[in-house]
């Protein structure tokens, strides 16, 4: 059991190395990258914006509703919203959602290519199929921090609108809260996490799609397994990075 996991992990790192061997012609790669940016990044903006805005609103309302003690200043609403959105919600939870959305898309599209022998066809032509398929996804996900930046912005905006228009606090109070005890390193920390998650989001689902065996049924199973593993690794890395960077 343990040996099987270890050999999978070994295989994963060998895959990472192979991705950068024998690169595909740049003129071809350029088009692949644009396509992946479109599928993975642009295609995710809508759902990320929607979720961030409303979850930001809910976080702020929840904080407001739990502030029953008059001694606690109303600024706390802005402060709490900022901290939870910037530190955890945007980088970590959006990434888990993306593990479902992007991840299952990546696993099923690569897995389908595997079972219909399209990957063999690439290899037989002399194409490095890992570079061809996975490298553009990694490059596209270099834009992932922008998605998370957008999520942070809209989350906080949603919080502000819910707090102000819901009549829980005034706009200046909320904004003062947002600025309270602002530590720039928290932003750095959030984006370091985001960058690590971006690599995981591109590579773990690719791994599960690329090395799958079987037919159409197994493509479905592989997508599920890939989602589970991507989220588990994201959560673990989140824990490790938080330990390393913040404490």
């Amino acid at each position, binding site marked *: 059991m343990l040996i099987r996991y270890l050999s999978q992990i070994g295989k994963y790192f060998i895959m990472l190395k192979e991705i950068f061997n024998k690169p595909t012609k740049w003129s071809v790669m350029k088009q692949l990258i644009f396509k992946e940016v479109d599928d993975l990044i642009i295609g995710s903006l809508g759902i990320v914006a929607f979720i961030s805005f409303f979850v930001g609103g809910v976080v702020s309302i929840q904080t407001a509703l739990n502030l029953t003690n008059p001694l606690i200043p109303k600024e706390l609403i802005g402060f709490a919203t900022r901290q939870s959105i910037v530190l955890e919600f945007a980088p970590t939870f959006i990434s888990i959602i993306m593990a479902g959305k992007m991840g299952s898309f990546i696993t099923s599209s690569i897995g389908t290519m595997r079972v219909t*022998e399209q990957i063999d066809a690439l*290899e037989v032509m*002399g194409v490095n199929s890992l570079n061809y398929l996975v490298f553009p996804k990694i490059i596209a996900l270099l834009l992932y921090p922008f998605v998370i930046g957008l999520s942070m912005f809209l989350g906080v905006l949603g919080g502000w609108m819910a707090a102000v228009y819901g009549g829980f606090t005034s706009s200046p109070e909320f904004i003062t809260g947002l600025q309270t005890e602002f530590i720039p390193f928290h932003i750095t920390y959030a984006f370091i996490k985001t960058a690590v998650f971006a690599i995981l989001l591109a590579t773990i689902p690719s791994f599960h799609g690329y090395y799958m065996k079987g037919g159409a049924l197994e493509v479905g199973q592989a997508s599920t397994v890939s989602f589970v593993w991507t989220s588990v690794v994201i959560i673990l890395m989140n824990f490790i990075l938080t330990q390393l960077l913040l404490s």
Partner: protein
Amino acid sequence: MIEVKNIIKKFGEQTVLKGVSTRFEAGMTNLIIGQSGSGKTVFLKSLLGIHTPDSGTISFDGRIYSELSNDERRELRTEIGMVFQGSALFDSMTVEENIGFPLKMFSNKSPKEIKERVDFVIDRVHLVNAHQKRPSEISGGMQKRVAIARAIVNNPKYLFCDEPNSGLDPKTAIVIDNLIQEITQEYNITTVINTHDMNSVMEIGEKIVFLKNGLLEWEGSNKEIFKTDNEAVTDFVYSSELFKRVRKMYLEDDK
């Protein structure tokens, strides 16, 4: 010329190829026949390096595959065209893009030259009204032709076809067979075809390799296959009444 020496391929407990040796000459259509499950696809994929044989060597005009570096292997593979049993066309691309793909990847041709070459091979495989369609929008027979066009677009030295005419009507099947044979002779390609279509065997079987239970049971030409008294071969090839009668007539004619 491809020379195969004693290849063995196992999947877990099951030994699919138990030591097969043979030679495939250039400019000839070499056929591999055998029952479903006899290991034809595994054999072809072992030649291509998609499966790694457990032992044995395969040499492409003197280049022994297992002794090549990764880069040399990729180099060699650009000289190979392959038609997969299930076509293996790229779903995300149109017919034209599929066929032009090897050129786009490995030649220095301009888009205009690629287009010309693609149009040429599309004509060559008699494909009409399909340029801009996707693989899912064309029929199985058309997919096969696209796969053949893609395999020959880069002037391969070696062409492998896994059941290029299964699932086609008899007329189209013969057209495809003849097409492959023509191209093979025209460009002096070393062609290896898997088939269980007896029409193909009779039409284009310049060299036939019969696999049974993981072993090479018989090899020879389509002329010889009429005369052989190897029971396994006659059993397999002349399993239908029609072919039994054809064989009898042929043998009587020959006397």
